[in-house]
């Protein structure tokens, strides 16, 4: 498997800065290894990988391509993994909500709870060699790329232990080695930049796909259509993932888009509509899309029908443009964690009590990470001027404050 410090055939290093820790772990290994080492055996009674058939009741809708099958297989091991990760994600977002209300997280904070199945199902079908880029609702995507909860929460708190040393914030989290390209504040950014990631894959002849995620609100940006034209023109290996949570902040998709639906918008790009609340549906669809791209068939689009429980951001109560009944209804009928919970208990892999204990463990992990983040110091003052430029030409670079310039007195 190619490593982060890959060399090109011409002998030059691929990444502009060869990051540390060359071994690329697949996502599930990393989460088990880092967060739950030693505890995995105690709390997953059914360790066998006996295949468990799963139905995907909500039909895939396909545009200009064949839909994936409406069923898949899972295993005890995978189910527990999904349960844990989604619980950590859920608890992390709830913890962030609390920290925000206490005034420790400021500015914009867009929470992902309700949408966990998309992040988790997607990573289950990809590797970290497949580059990923998304927009601002990214905390869980970043976690899914192998980040720790501390790296996320410390960044939200603006501390040194944060993944961007406190200088990025909620919308600017990145992972160099695991090919996670952020974290973008401006709507509509992932499609063109993601198309560039796919261009690089094609240029370097890497057997991977790029995934560019964006929302139903962004889908009406011109740069999205422009990017798709180029991807289709040059048959780039890119999966465009529209996380359709039905609201662009306070504007419903019906009030923003002339055409209902995103999977069937572009005549020359095939698309599939996916039940985004089912981690199994997401996994199957993304695997299907990856296969499509790796066969050299060009871009493909996945519309994830998903839902966010919180408002658009912490500044938005999320109840002025939709009813509480609607939110509670989705939570009751389609919650992604409940789906996995039901399957685990139905298969007799664990009791509800055991799963409750497991969820409590996840909560404890998140609480510990929050404490660790709170203990991390604020950035040093000098950090204000670092990383504005990369000083590499041997000549002194001037900082933001021109007092930093040195004048030679005669």
């Amino acid at each position, binding site marked *: 498997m190619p490593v982060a410090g890959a060399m090109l055939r011409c002998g030059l*290093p691929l990444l502009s800065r060869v990051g540390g820790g060359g071994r690329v772990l697949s996502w599930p290994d990393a989460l088990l290894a880092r967060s739950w080492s030693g505890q995995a055996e105690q709390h997953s009674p059914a360790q066998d990988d006996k295949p468990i058939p799963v139905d995907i009741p909500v039909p895939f809708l396909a545009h200009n391509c064949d839909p994936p099958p409406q069923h898949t297989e899972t295993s005890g091991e995978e189910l527990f993994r999904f349960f844990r990760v989604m619980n950590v994600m859920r608890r992390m977002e709830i913890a962030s909500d609390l920290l925000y209300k206490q005034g420790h997280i400021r500015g914009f904070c867009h929470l992902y709870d309700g949408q966990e199945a998309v992040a988790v199902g997607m990573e289950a079908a990809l590797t970290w060699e497949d580059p990923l880029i998304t927009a601002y609702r990214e905390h869980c995507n970043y976690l899914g790329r192998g980040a720790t909860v501390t790296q996320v929460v410390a960044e939200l708190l603006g501390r040194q232990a944060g993944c961007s040393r406190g200088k990025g914030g909620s919308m*600017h989290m*990145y992972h160099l080695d695991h090919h996670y390209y952020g974290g973008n504040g401006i709507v509509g950014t992932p499609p*063109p930049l993601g*198309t560039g990631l796919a261009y690089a894959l094609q240029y*370097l002849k890497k057997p991977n796909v790029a995934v560019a995620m964006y929302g139903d609100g962004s889908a009406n940006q011109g740069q999205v259509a422009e990017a798709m034209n180029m991807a289709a023109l040059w048959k780039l290996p890119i999966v465009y993932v529209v996380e359709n949570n039905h609201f662009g902040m306070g504007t419903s998709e019906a009030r923003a888009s002339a055409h209902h639906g995103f999977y069937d918008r572009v005549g020359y790009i095939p698309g599939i509509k996916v039940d985004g609340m089912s981690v199994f549906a997401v996994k199957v669809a993304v695997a299907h899309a990856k296969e499509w791209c790796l066969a050299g068939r060009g871009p493909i689009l996945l519309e994830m029908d998903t839902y966010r429980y919180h408002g658009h951001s912490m500044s938005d109560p999320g109840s002025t443009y939709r009813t509480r009944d609607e939110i509670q209804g989705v939570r009751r009928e389609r919650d992604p964690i409940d789906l996995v919970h039901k399957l685990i208990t139905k298969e007799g892999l664990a009791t509800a009590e055991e799963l409750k204990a497991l969820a409590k463990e996840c909560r404890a992990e998140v609480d510990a990470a929050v404490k660790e983040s709170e203990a991390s110091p604020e950035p040093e003052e000098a950090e204000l001027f670092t990383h504005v*430029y990369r000083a590499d030409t041997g000549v002194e670079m001037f900082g933001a404050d021109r007092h930093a*310039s040195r*004048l030679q007195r005669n």
Partner: protein
Amino acid sequence: MAQLLLFEALREAILEEMERDCRVFVMGEDVGHYGGSYKVTKGLAEKYGDWRLLDTPIAENSFTGLAIGAAMTGLRPIVEGMNMGFLLLAFNQIANNAGMLHYTSGGNFTTPLVIRGPGGVGRQLGAEHSQRLESYFQSVPGLQMVACSTPVNGKGLLKSAIRSQNPVLFFEHVLLYNIKQPIPTGENLSSLERAEVVREGKDVTLLTYSRMRHYVIQAARILVSQGYDPEVIDLVSLKPLDMGTIARSIQKTHRAIIVEECMRTGGIGATLRASIMEYLFDELDGPVVCLSSQDVPTPYSGLLEDMTVVQPGQIVQAVKSMCTKESVQ
């Protein structure tokens, strides 16, 4: 030494860097098969193919975004704006996605990107094709901006820009592509942060860049023949400004005149004046004079267009007003 036209010098720079580093590629409208609207990439597509000389659709916003995404992975794109003015459509990409990335990622990612193309006032190209983008981008932190003015500095700067880890805006001028100059062989990289002392002198410091450098040189010839001794400095680096070289000069001459093609409001001269005033006030015998273009859209009429930009005669006049024969030793 071979004599090269400026566009040939730029092409040589691109060719040499593409040969040296397989990650370097060019993208833009008509850069490939057509050879570039100003022939900067002529013949390169035949040598390097469609993936390295990428003909893009007319979609500046997204293809600049594409270049940024590619640069984040370690590739080194050279984005050509057919006219720099078209890159206003990509302002968001350049400001938010390129400029800020190294900072917002806490140093994790860089965007080793060069965005180049012709700008400035040409010959009756009309308002929308006579933009001076250096004014708009100068306050975006993280961007580097250089303006080439000769074949020698054009080649040297472009090579350095391609090798830099920072996003560099490389300003060329529509009217300078056919300037000829002997070019030495060898690497000859130019520093991206150094101004160029074109002519040493002691009476007055003339600070300029790009096409105006040539008008200043014209004016300097006239002034020298009349007994003046101006020092001419080509800024080259528009962001960050080379305050070191500028300061050394003003400490010597105590008089500064800026000659720029930007509009008066919010241009490079506006920033430079403020810096000089702030740091070199005690060195100055009088206020800094700034000759800029008029704050108007560039008119089509040749007569009016000439009035829009600074002319050599005005530069001569400004120096004479500042340096009366008595005050100059």
